[in-house]
């Protein structure tokens, strides 16, 4: 009876760890060295403070890009604290802010990105994050959706694009707004971005959102993250974790940088959540080891039961 209980408990733990571990994703934050300490880029605000922004849909064509971008902001806002009225991103009135220019205005809009170094047809959009190198405080963000004339795709408000030449503005906006919060890409190895499923997972569901899957190529059949649309459930629905991104005094990114010469931006893998982090594989392995031991014990006992004179089973 005792053995059965142990097996059941170990199996339950192992199953839970396998499920959590296999579905978990890493997240990455941008950080710089400030006074010798690796410091995460952050806004330095506390709830209910908001990040105001302007949406300039000029150049978006005939679609209602403003509403799509508002939906994306709402998704982050709902993730932030579950109450849309207390907003993380807050749209202000139309103004004169320029896209991709540091002018104290967080601006979201459309522009031809081919004039930027290395940005061509394969980039759907980019986010510029301006910060203070002395404090790692974010000053401003600007998001630009590429409207290069021969870009090879059309902007859409359809959450379920029918072809790979149609891109949903709202889906991309969710991704870019993640950058505006200081999040980097989560990607496969060898790309310069962090890897997902690396055992140090924090924001469980940010992996799909922050994958750089929006870099379109002609051969690509799917440029969308997992699933047809992104909702609050695609982010981590834990208000504390999102608000932690905004603060400075948090240990989300405290990994030491061994190279003192590094001055450029560094991507640090997330390590904020115990249940999704290293504790999972450790517990999973322990459970599996326990199962193996118990299985061995049961097997030995069963074999011994077959030895003549030892068992009276009949």
């Amino acid at each position, binding site marked *: 009876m005792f053995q059965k209980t142990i097996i059941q408990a170990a199996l339950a733990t192992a199953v839970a760890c396998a499920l959590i571990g296999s579905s978990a*994703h890493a997240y990455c934050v941008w950080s710089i060295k400030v006074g010798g300490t690796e410091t995460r880029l952050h806004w330095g605000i506390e709830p209910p403070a908001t990040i105001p922004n302007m949406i300039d849909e000029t150049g978006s064509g005939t679609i209602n890009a403003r509403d799509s971008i508002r939906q994306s902001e709402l998704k982050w806002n709902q993730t932030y604290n579950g109450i849309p009225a207390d907003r993380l991103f807050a749209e202000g009135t139309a103004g004169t802010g320029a896209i991709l220019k540091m002018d104290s205005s967080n601006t979201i809009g459309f522009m031809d990105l081919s004039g930027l170094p*290395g940005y061509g047809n394969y980039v759907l959009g980019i986010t510029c994050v301006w910060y203070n190198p002395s404090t790692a405080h974010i000053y401003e963000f600007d998001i630009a959706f590429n409207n290069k004339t021969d870009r090879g795709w059309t902007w859409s408000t359809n959450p379920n694009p029918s072809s790979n030449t149609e891109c949903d503005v709202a889906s991309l906006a969710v991704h870019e707004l993640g950058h505006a919060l200081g999040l980097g890409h989560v990607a*496969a190895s060898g790309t310069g971005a962090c890897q997902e499923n690396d055992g140090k997972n924090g924001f469980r569901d940010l992996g799909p959102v922050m994958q750089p899957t929006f*870099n379109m190529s002609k051969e690509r059949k799917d440029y969308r993250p997992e699933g047809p649309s992104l909702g609050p459930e695609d982010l981590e629905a834990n208000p504390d974790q999102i608000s932690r991104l905004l603060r400075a005094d948090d240990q989300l990114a405290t990994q030491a940088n061994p190279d003192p010469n590094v*001055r450029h931006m560094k991507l640090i893998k997330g390590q904020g959540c115990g249940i999704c982090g290293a504790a999972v594989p450790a517990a999973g392995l322990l459970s*599996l080891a326990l199962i193996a031991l118990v299985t061995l014990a049961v097997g030995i006992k069963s074999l011994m039961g077959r030895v003549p004179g030892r068992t009276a089973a009949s």
Partner: protein
Amino acid sequence: MRSVSLIRLVVLVLLAAPWVSAPLARAAYFPLSDRELLAASDLVVDAIVREQTSHWNEDHSLIFTTVTLDVLQTLYSRRASAGQVVRIVVLGGEVGDVGLVVEDTPRFRVGERAVVFIAPWTKGRNVVAGGELGWIAVDPSGRLIGRAISVDGFAAHLRMLSR
């Protein structure tokens, strides 16, 4: 005995689950292929970062960083002369009390070795083709990080793609 077999089966399934599910989790990621990167480049080098300097662009709206690369070997070239030193411009950097970071932009560090896909830009300047995908770090043993292939092997791979 039946219960022992069942437990063994469950253990096997649990052991296999993470390996089976891991690729699925990455299924949404479709980077530019090497062929696409090559098509977007006219020069691919194995190089070491000598220095990098950040500066404002002409209209003082964006910060660029000029990165100087010492070329160890040219892996692919459609240029008349590749040269031993290549300077590339990337978006982002720090100037005084202002820093700019942009995703998709490769981030270099002085002394680092990397394979870089390079394309021409305006005013005779060079850029990294394919953003962060066009920069692949090389480890001290001469293997591309994350690729499980040596620089020489990658050069052969590029030659095959360019035919």
